[in-house]
């Protein structure tokens, strides 16, 4: 039978057409977008009920949120500056997640990365150029952060310790260690009521992106997300990791170095969080002290899960979450709502999005096979 003849007997809906490959491609990619957006809408609807219940107007609230998050160039920069550290701390969750590991202790790597960067800077200030000092600080932060979270990966593979628990406990250890160091050996004697390391001179700080009130951390974070996507999607190392994440036994039978993959991925993840700590010290705080315990490590968990551990999706999700946090202040000031409002919204969204995970593979419309020639 010729192709034309075959087409003539097939129902119109499944006739091959030049659009089919495109539809197939779209169907595969539309699933996470539609389900996530749907989850966000449901979450917002639930949150609106909550706002109605406390006697405020959800419409007005969303308007204020938009003003505070993206309503002006100032607000956009406000949101982006809050998103910057979340990009890196979300990677600390997303990368191990591709191996099937749930690491929630990125906060520890942030804190120790910051301390390591500040300690590295001490002997370098005044002896080497600012550029070189910043590079050394970044390397130190990444090394220490990588070591810290890599340890959780190591314990997981070689000692069978649950990485979720160990990474969380390691985060508490890290904060205690930081306090000990900045109140003891690393303390600047001039820091009386807020024990800190010696402050970085202004010329050794990371500075802002020209023309903006945003530090370079945002671009570094975006770069790290793109790099991670390449690592996972386009390299054999990433491919092996995805196999191991899908089925460890199968990966082992294939002869993949699962141990090295786990330690390697957790270490890379930790080094990103460590870099976030370095940036917090070099671009914002100017020294390491209790203020670098920011909670970015924990917000990163939320970002990574909302992005379904896709490094590229982390970028828009982090910006959205940064916007939510940026709008928190305006919600308090304009509507007299408590600060917890934004946390209620974050929590609602998180739960709804996790619930919606169960909808994957449930809708035929997203099945690429439907759009294939039968």
């Amino acid at each position, binding site marked *: 039978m010729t192709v034309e003849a075959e087409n003539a007997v097939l129902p119109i809906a499944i006739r091959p057409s030049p659009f089919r490959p495109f539809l197939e491609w779209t169907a595969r990619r539309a699933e996470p977008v539609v389900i996530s957006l749907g989850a966000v809408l449901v979450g917002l609807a639930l949150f609106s009920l909550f706002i109605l219940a406390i006697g405020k107007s959800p419409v007005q609230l969303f308007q204020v949120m938009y003003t505070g998050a993206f309503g002006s160039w*100032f607000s956009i920069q406000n949101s982006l500056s809050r998103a910057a550290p979340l990009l890196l701390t979300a990677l600390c969750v997303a990368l191990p997640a591709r191996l099937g590991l749930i690491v929630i202790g990125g906060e520890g790597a942030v804190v120790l990365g910051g301390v390591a960067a500040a300690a590295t800077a001490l002997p370098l200030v005044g002896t080497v150029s600012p550029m070189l000092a910043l590079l050394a600080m970044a390397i130190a932060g990444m090394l220490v952060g990588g070591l810290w979270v890599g340890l959780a990966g190591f314990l997981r593979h070689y000692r069978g310790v649950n990485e979720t628990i160990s990474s969380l406990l390691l985060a508490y250890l890290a904060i205690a260690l930081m306090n000990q160091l900045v*109140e003891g050996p690393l303390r600047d004697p001039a820091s009386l009521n807020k024990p800190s390391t010696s402050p970085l001179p202004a010329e050794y700080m990371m500075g802002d992106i020209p023309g903006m009130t945003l530090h370079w951390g945002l671009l570094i974070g975006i770069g790290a997300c793109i790099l991670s996507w390449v690592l996972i999607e386009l390299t054999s190392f990433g491919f092996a990791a995805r196999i191991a994440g899908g089925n460890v036994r199968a990966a082992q039978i294939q002869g993949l170095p699962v141990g090295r993959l786990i330690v390697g991925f957790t270490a890379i993840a930790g080094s990103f969080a460590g870099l976030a700590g370095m940036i917090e010290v070099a671009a914002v705080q*100017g020294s390491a002290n209790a203020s670098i315990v*920011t909670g970015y490590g924990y917000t990163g968990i939320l970002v990574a899960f909302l992005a379904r551990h896709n490094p590229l999706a982390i970028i828009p999700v982090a910006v959205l979450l940064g916007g939510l*946090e940026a709008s928190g202040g*305006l919600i308090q000031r304009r509507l007299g709502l408590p*600060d917890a409002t934004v946390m209620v919204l974050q929590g609602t969204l998180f739960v709804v999005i996790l619930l919606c995970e169960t909808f994957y593979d449930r809708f035929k419309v997203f099945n690429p096979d439907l759009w294939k020639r039968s």
Partner: protein
Amino acid sequence: MGFAASAVPGFMASSALAQAELAVGFIYVGPKDDYGYNQAHAEGAAVVKALPGVTVIEEENVAETVDVQKSMESMINLDGAALLFPTSFGYFDPHVLATAAKNPDTLFRHCGGLWQEGKHPANTGSYFGYIHQGQFLNGVAAGHASKTKKIGFVAAKPIPQVLQNVNAFLLGARSVDPSITCQVIFTGEWSLAVKEAEATNALVDQGADVITCHVDSPKVVVETAAGRGAFVCGYHANQSPLAPEKYLTGAEWAWGNVYSNFVKSAQNGEKLGNFVRGGLKDGFVKMSPLGTAVTEPARKQFETTFTEIMTGKFSVFQGPLKDNKGNEVVGASQAFAEDAIELESMAYLVEGVVGSTS
């Protein structure tokens, strides 16, 4: 919506400043109703709110990160704030300093910092109070109430402002009975409820029967101590509603006075002080009303000491005084006035305090 009018662009705000309302921003590191540090400041803001010609804007739970810089800028850009009170100690360096440098027309007054001329921008300044005087008075009440002659202190961090309070509490109690000792436990964090409860229980277990604290929110300490049957002395704000029977008195901030003075000066176009300090007599610090458990002799000594402090000539730290390692820290003929700058770098625990700064 109605907030287009309040978001006056900068040029309009400055030209209309004389007639327009003065927008004053308050930023807190924790919740406004924490029965402690933040509540004390929020109560001050509430006093300002009642003044004519003032709009108060507030934000709570703002972290000591870029968050507070953005909150300050947002108050300036979106709400036209002309005077800001970022109240957490950790906001000052680098956040207030960086934001003040970028916004030279806005005034910043910060709680607790040590503003230095030449080093810090002229539109910034710091204010604080000699609240160790209040802890000394707490100690007087505690000294009378204690039967075990052991009192306890739950402290956040071994820094000068906290050490002053620990030492003053013990010295106050020793002005009643020189055999009293005070055990101090440092939790390491400004706000860590679990450790505060553990520390309080540990102090009571070791025999302390009057407890006070210096943490951001004394709520947990007060409730835990009272629950275990110990007396409590408050700090930062009035916690007597939490333990009416066990609450002796408390060292409270009186920020309402301080903020009103700043705001009135700003409204009159006067220059605001850059380094402002004061104690009980200056209305920076006040005491909670004495509780029902305070006995008559205790009330008498409390009032005598109170009157003495109100003259401004009373020294909490007077020699001879040793630290708890046996070194002399205040000479026999020496006495530090309430505003002695040496007190702001205190690094020791006095004899009679059981505990260590490291």
